């Protein structure tokens, strides 16, 4: 599937070898016409930047289709010169159409080939790998190409002059990278970086050194392992955790202990954690979002086309589940689900900045109460929600990074948080003060007082003093914010590699003090400690962290997701040849 340069038309290659053209209209697509059909399934498509032609890659050949007439104007056999007995199927996995009429193909023989589409001739061929080259992306200037192979390697090709200062240019394989262990299924080429996504569940952003002005934080390779969203939700009162997997949900009850101990001790678990429930989603769709109510008796999840609410009844040790009937249809698609703290309402983040409010009814029903919309309207969907503990406020973040606060008492828009030019990665409303704490993707922290409709004094101090450099240069964004019920000054923040208890009552660290000072503090005597304390209490003991939440009684639940476990579930990497060395 590929859209043309202007985004007005969509071409779809089908298994049967046809290419279908759709017109992009507001709110959907409309079938326009069928292009020439030929045998062999279409595996990849690329539009000419001018939108006049489409190159389609299938097994053993490439076709170039004229969009206006719908005819096949060129057919290029990719392994024409391979002699017959050797012939295997050559799958063209990925294709790109450059504006000068060059078609770049990558195939299962490990080749990246450059073709002149008009003549159908091979311009250049580079064999980059013994296994398939699966993905390909071209930079906007068309002077650089990145390809990903099934061995996990990515290669950069650059259009370089043959002689320094000369006119003649050739594609040269310049940089090999090996960051993945499995197939590289997708690559993208940003102006300053190569981005590759592999079957090993990692997204790697590799900045191009020649495009980065200074060596520093910007020029660092990034590996993204987890999605930047919460996949775990916690029922704090019921002490339940809901884990969201791609096709199913698991509900667990936390274990407990009756012992106490000193720092670092591992206590005996007297009540083991309990696997209460496994909900399998029907059909092939992935679960997009899920939540469990604080009381633990409601579980909701949503896929691209379906939305389900379940009533979970706990009777002693046994658990029964009942699907809630009559879920309103108007809600889809849902991007985030959030339960009110009294478990009476469910907030569903949806398209165009709207948030649907559902009332959850005992013993198992629901009712659509209201739909909240920003006054100015927006095209973007809401992707993050935060509700206040008193049930009065709801904050919603939409894709244009605007944060709107609604009053739930009157179902009306209360205010908007001043725009900040960065994506919001997490937000939460303080239960006691109704201050909205916002974490941005650039690691900035803000506190916004909802009743006063302005940033709090503490937030201004933070902004004036600036956050610590070590904090700003962390690799992953904050994905969840929680508050300590015992101490209103404590804010819990976590990313993949650390969690932090932010104590607002303590001074902020200045540039000269180390940010990560916990281990140093532990060795200091009590009076010296007091002088060294600062607001950020960071613990990196548990990695990689998927979720952290504060419970009552000074308890904290952390969910680690070891990468080794993920790897163990992956299919084995590309088969190496069993014979020979």
């Amino acid at each position, binding site marked *: 599937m590929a859209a043309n340069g202007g985004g007005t038309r969509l071409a779809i290659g089908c298994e049967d070898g046809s290419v279908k053209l759709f017109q992009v209209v507001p709110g959907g697509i409309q079938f326009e016409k069928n292009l020439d059909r030929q045998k062999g399934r279409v595996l990849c498509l690329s539009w000419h930047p001018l939108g006049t032609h489409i190159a389609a890659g299938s097994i053993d050949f490439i076709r170039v289709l004229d969009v206006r007439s719908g005819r096949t104007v060129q057919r290029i056999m990719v392994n024409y010169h391979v*002699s*017959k*007995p050797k012939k295997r199927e050559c799958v063209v996995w990925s294709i790109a159409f450059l504006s000068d009429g060059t078609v770049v193909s990558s195939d299962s023989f490990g080749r990246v080939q450059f073709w002149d589409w008009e003549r159908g001739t091979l311009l250049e061929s580079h064999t980059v790998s013994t296994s398939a080259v699966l993905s390909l992306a071209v930079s906007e200037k068309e002077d650089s190409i990145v390809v990903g192979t099934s061995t996990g390697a990515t290669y950069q090709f650059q259009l370089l002059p043959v002689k320094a200062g000369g006119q003649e240019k050739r594609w040269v394989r310049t940089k090999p990278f090996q960051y993945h262990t499995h197939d590289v299924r997708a690559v993208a080429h940003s102006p300053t970086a190569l981005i590759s996504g592999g079957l090993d569940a990692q997204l790697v952003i590799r900045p191009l050194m020649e495009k980065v002005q200074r060596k520093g934080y910007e020029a660092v390779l990034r590996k993204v392992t987890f999605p930047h969203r919460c996949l775990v939700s916690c029922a704090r009162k019921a002490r339940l955790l809901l884990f969201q997997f791609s096709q199913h949900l698991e509900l667990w009850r936390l274990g407990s202990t009756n012992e106490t*101990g000193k720092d670092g001790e591992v206590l005996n678990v007297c009540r083991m*954690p309990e696997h209460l429930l496994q909900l399998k989603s029907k059909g092939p769709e992935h679960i997009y979002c899920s939540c469990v109510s604080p009381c633990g008796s409601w579980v909701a999840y949503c896929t691209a086309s379906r939305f389900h609410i379940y009533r979970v009844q706990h009777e002693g040790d046994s658990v029964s589940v009942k699907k809630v009937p009559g879920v309103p249809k108007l809600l889809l698609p849902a991007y985030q689900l959030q339960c009110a703290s009294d478990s009476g309402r469910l907030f569903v983040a949806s398209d165009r900045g709207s948030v649907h409010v559902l009332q959850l009814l005992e013993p198992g029903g629901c009712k659509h109460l209201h739909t909240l919309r920003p006054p100015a309207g927006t095209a973007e969907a809401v992707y993050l929600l935060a509700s206040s503990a008193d049930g009065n406020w709801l904050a919603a973040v939409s894709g244009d990074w605007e944060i709107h606060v609604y009053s739930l008492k009157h179902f009306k828009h209360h205010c908007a948080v001043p725009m900040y030019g960065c994506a919001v990665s997490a937000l939460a409303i303080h239960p006691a003060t109704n201050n909205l704490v916002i974490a941005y993707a650039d690691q900035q922290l803000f506190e916004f007082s909802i009743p006063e409709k302005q940033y709090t004094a503490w937030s201004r101090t933070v902004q004036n003093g600036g956050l610590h450099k070590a904090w700003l240069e962390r690799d992953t964004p904050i994905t969840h914010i929680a508050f300590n019920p015992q101490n209103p000054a404590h804010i819990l923040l976590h990313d993949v590699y650390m969690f932090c208890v932010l104590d607002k009552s303590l001074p902020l660290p200045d540039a000269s003090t180390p940010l990560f000072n916990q281990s140093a503090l*532990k060795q200091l005597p009590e009076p010296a400690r007091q002088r060294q304390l600062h607001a950020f209490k960071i*613990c990196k003991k548990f990695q990689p962290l998927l979720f952290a939440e504060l419970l009552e009684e000074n308890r904290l639940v952390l969910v680690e997701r070891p990468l080794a476990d993920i790897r163990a579930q992956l299919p084995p990497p590309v088969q190496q*040849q069993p014979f*020979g060395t």
Partner: protein
Amino acid sequence: MAALCEAFTLCGLGPSGGVGQGGGVLALEPGPGPDHVLLTDRGRTATLFKVSDQKPLGCWSVKHGQIITSPVVCNFETHEYIAVHDDKVLRIWKDEDVNLDKVFKATLSADVYRIHSLPHGDPLVLFKGGGVRTLDVLLEAPQQEIENIISDEVIKWSEAFLEGQQPVLIFITEKDGDFFVYVQKLKMNSLHKYKLEQQESSSPLSFTAYIRKQIITLLCLYSNDSVYKVLIPLQQNGEGEEQILSKSLLLNLSISGSVLKGTSLVVIDKDHVAVLGSLAASGEESKECLTIWNTKFQTLQTSKELPLGTSGQLWCYGEKFFFTHGKVLTVVIYKCETSSLAAAVGKLKDSQASDISSFVNWNTLEDEERVVSFQPQQSAALKSESKMTLRSRRNSVAKAQPDAFKVGQILLNIKDTSAAVIEDELRQLLLKAQIPDFQATIGCVITALINRCKTDPVFYPRNFLLQMVQKRELSYSLCPDLMAVALEKKDVHLLQICLQRFPDIPEEITYACLKVFLSISDDYLERTDVNLESVICYIDIEPKNKELKTEVVENGFNTELEEDSCDNRVLKETHTTNDGEFCPVGPRKAALLNAVLHSAYSETFLLPHLKDLSAQQAVLFLRYLYYLYVKCSEKINTTLPGMLSPTINQIMDWMCLLLDAHFTVMVMLPEAKGLLSSLHKFVRAQVRFYSELNKIEGTLRELQRIKRQKDSQAYSIEVLELI
């Protein structure tokens, strides 16, 4: 693998072009384009075809009563067609000419056998008398006299090549069952005549040849269902004398019981030939078929049955076979890839590297061996003669010995002729490195030389032997007496090289070498030439240097300290009387001993011999081994630098072996005591060190285990204090 594709018909043949010997067409020659062929039938007509279109492009015929005697060829330079009819009348025409009567005509003075056209160059005209002219020369004076070279021999086959820019014509004649090969280089105006080696009860049926690297390879299909290979070097300086070309069996055309009666063959590439013939299984009717054979693996790659019969002619142009099948001319496209074991297992890298295989065909050796063994051993005049010629040996220049080809002759010569003559002959022989089973031949030659050495104490072709051992892949078993003679002559350099090169030296000889090396004086070694590659990188003392230093001692410096200064720094600070610090032998002797250490041996067989070493020699050897061991242990990777230097395992094995063999002697001998005790200390220190490392390893493993245990817990409740 080779493969024959579907056949198609090019054209039908007239009544003359039938099946069976004598039928068919006169010839098929490549046409002006890559896809074109020129067909000349046995009558009056020549036709030009475009093969892929299966259609004729042009057809020419001579008048009634005339007959084309030499097939039409295309002059690729001028795109003209040339033919000869009625033996003497030459015709040249172009595409647009229709009537052959009206085209250029020249009547020649002699009968033409064939015209050969070359891709870049003038066509060559071969006359039945063996004379060759280029077309240009011939057209200047068509009536010129053509010499008769071959008298009453009859030309059977001819072929022309371009070697570099030089046209080469080869033709084969027959007379009374003898076959002669003529090689004519036109530019040089040289003609060589060879006689093809006789084969009992079979005669050649078909020939084909190709040229590569100045050597013509002639393949002959014989009536005994075998293909023989004959190598004809182009670089020949001697002239006139008739040489006999030996042939080697390339391929036996038999497939599991059934035999292919070949009628003609063509070469496809260096490993493949195609043979057209009839396959006769016992008790069954024979059927004609086209086959492709791999000569490297002696296997039949593919075949195609031709039920309608053929005329026994086969041509191959541009990956296509042409032959008559029934009443039509059939074309079969083939595919033939170089096959190799590597390709079969998918590991093919570069096929060019393994061009010359060096395995021995033992059967061909028989004759030569017989010559060696049955010749009378002594020759009376031998001594005086070789003495006399020895002086002139150096300055004698290699005289051309055209007949040096016959190895048997050389072997005979070695018995009695002078050393100078033998050297020359051998040099000639070496130049012909292409002769089959060269390695085995060299083995025979060396054996013969050694026999001569044994009988004649003055005779010793040292340089030749050195060269042979160094360059060729010989082995001990191929020339068993070589090392014995070298030992006798104390030729340490030859022994060193033998020890390095031969894979199969018996322990007895190894021991003898060791004994000689240990006993030989350093002064003697100073004068000899020994390869020092293996020691140059680590040995530290020049004995002469040492003396020099002691002389220039001044300012009250201790001589002993000064001695060390040529050693490296580390040693300078340590105790000077330590045995392990200096090399106890000179670098030359060390190099020789290294060669011994490097050779293969079996402990059981070596041990009894080692016991025969004298106590002094044993101590010296042990001291050297100890020195090597210390040197080895200095480096973290326990290897000595340099080429062919002994490994630590070799050193340790020899040390143990030596101690086993001379246990009591070592214990008793006072001078060995110091050595043994320092050796003991050194080894003990090492053992301690390694045992400590082992302990650490255990600890590390335990640490790892603990860590893993901690990790594996899926659920835990921990106390965590945040300050």
